[in-house]
């Protein structure tokens, strides 16, 4: 595959987009693990919800 004289611009655009997408995926995956762990720790200490939080 030959991108010609502007290969650096094309590769930079795709590399940056890949980095942003990977960062977003890592953000949701790591945040999920953290929240699940926090919930599990609280529930293990006997803290449970009485109902949905009131508004």
């Amino acid at each position, binding site marked *: 595959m030959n991108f010609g004289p502007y290969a650096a611009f094309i590769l930079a655009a795709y590399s940056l*987009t890949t980095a942003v997408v990977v960062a977003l995926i890592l953000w949701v995956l790591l945040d999920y693990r953290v929240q699940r762990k926090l919930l599990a720790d609280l529930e293990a200490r006997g*803290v449970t919800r009485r109902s949905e939080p009131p508004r």
Partner: protein
Amino acid sequence: MEWIALANPSRFLALAERLLPWLAAATALAFAAGLYAAFFVAPEDYQQGATVRIIFIHVPGAWLGMLGWAIMSVAALGTLVWRHPLADVALKTAAPIGAAFTFVCLVTGALWGRPMWGTYWVWDARLTSVLVLFLMYLGLIALWRAIEDPARAARAAAVLTLVGAVNLPIIKFSVDWWSTLHQPASVFRVGGSTIHPAILAPLLVMALAFTLLFATLYVSAMRNEILRRRVRTLRLLQVHAAQGA
């Protein structure tokens, strides 16, 4: 199940658990097809050469940056009119994802502009209005972080979101209302697309892939935010119990 029943956070969590594997798989398949078409099927442009391949990430980035704010505007109505907690969650979680796609649009546009226009940036109406969208996203994220109470933060963010929605038609029609270096609409326009089908078809597949990615990330982020609020509620209960003891 009626759709309105999904507005219950517990039902949303159950649905998200079932939906996310399918969404992730569909996203991966769509990207595989889209990237193959973008690099091995789509021809080079007769004027732009290989740089036209940046269109396959630049245009979906732009669409999803705007879609993020449009979704937030609908959620803002849910927050202000019905004061529903899931609307708050939908409003808050779309902001970082929309900001990321707007950032992709801006940077890939600059990297496309330098070889084709001779400059990374020009203060024309399209580029400036998209930059304003990105700055509004950052402002909204900062607002959420500045107010500790989620319900109060949601109401303030909802007002700012609805005010900021004025920018969406400005972005869309900026190339018609003002003389811009950025090209006019070329995909969705009266009279049909001006893009050759050999490039338009991969673009639409990549747009589908990015939209599925957006949906996957958005449902995941909403699930995480609901869990975060449950953690907050449990911590408050723990404090109240300790004070009552």
